């Protein structure tokens, strides 16, 4: 939460929108929900260069998403 609070308002709104889309449907077009190589985490797209780090967890009620972090994820391969 400390990292979310520190985001610029524009990015914060995009992160919020992405997280809400994830909570509704991880297959939402443009969310690009995919695993992060070399870690148990997944990422979703907030904008072209900003992603959100997500962990999938399980409990008795089923699986749920844990939003862990967000940051720049520049795409260098155009």
């Amino acid at each position, binding site marked *: 939460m400390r990292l979310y609070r520190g985001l610029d308002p524009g990015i914060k709104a995009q992160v919020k929108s992405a997280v809400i889309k994830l909570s509704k449907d991880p297959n939402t077009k443009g969310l690009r929900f995919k695993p992060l190589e070399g*870690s148990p985490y997944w990422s979703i797209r907030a904008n072209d260069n900003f*992603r959100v780090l997500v962990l999938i967890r399980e409990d008795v009620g089923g699986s749920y998403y844990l939003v862990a972090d967000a940051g720049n994820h520049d795409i260098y391969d155009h």
Partner: protein
Amino acid sequence: MGFPAQMSALSELEHEVVEVARAAPLEREEQAPIEVLAEKAKAIEQLLAKIKPTLASIFAEVAEPAKAVGIMGVPLIDEVIEHLAARESALAKQLVPMIEVAQTLRSTMFGRNLRREEKTRHVLVLERQAKAMTAILELFRDGRWRMMALRAELELADDSPAFSDPKELEAYLDKL
């Protein structure tokens, strides 16, 4: 638990990448002999191969002691993430314009006054250069994200708020 020693090795590799990439400016490469271009591509690929294990060593240097001390390890990870982000950004300023030039040259190469075989070789070498420089930037980025995942692992609390209704989630995020 201190700043990873391997970080200085990474800085040296980063400087080498920039020096190698600058050594034969791409803007003049259409006249450069193919051997010179191929050497440059090979040198960048070799540096790429060295950067990967160096980043893995940095991760290991940070992850083991940080996991041992739990949440107390977060400030060091913050510092390493900040450092990697700065390095990635500095390197991107140097390499991204060169990648773009390589891609432009590659796409215009077939219109040039060279034999077909020469054109094909130039295109392949320019592709190798662009691909290796791109891969180096991606390694820095992915190394930073791996570190972010480690930080998240240490910071995640079992008492984090949970939501089953997206509207409740939205209301919660609006307050932050």
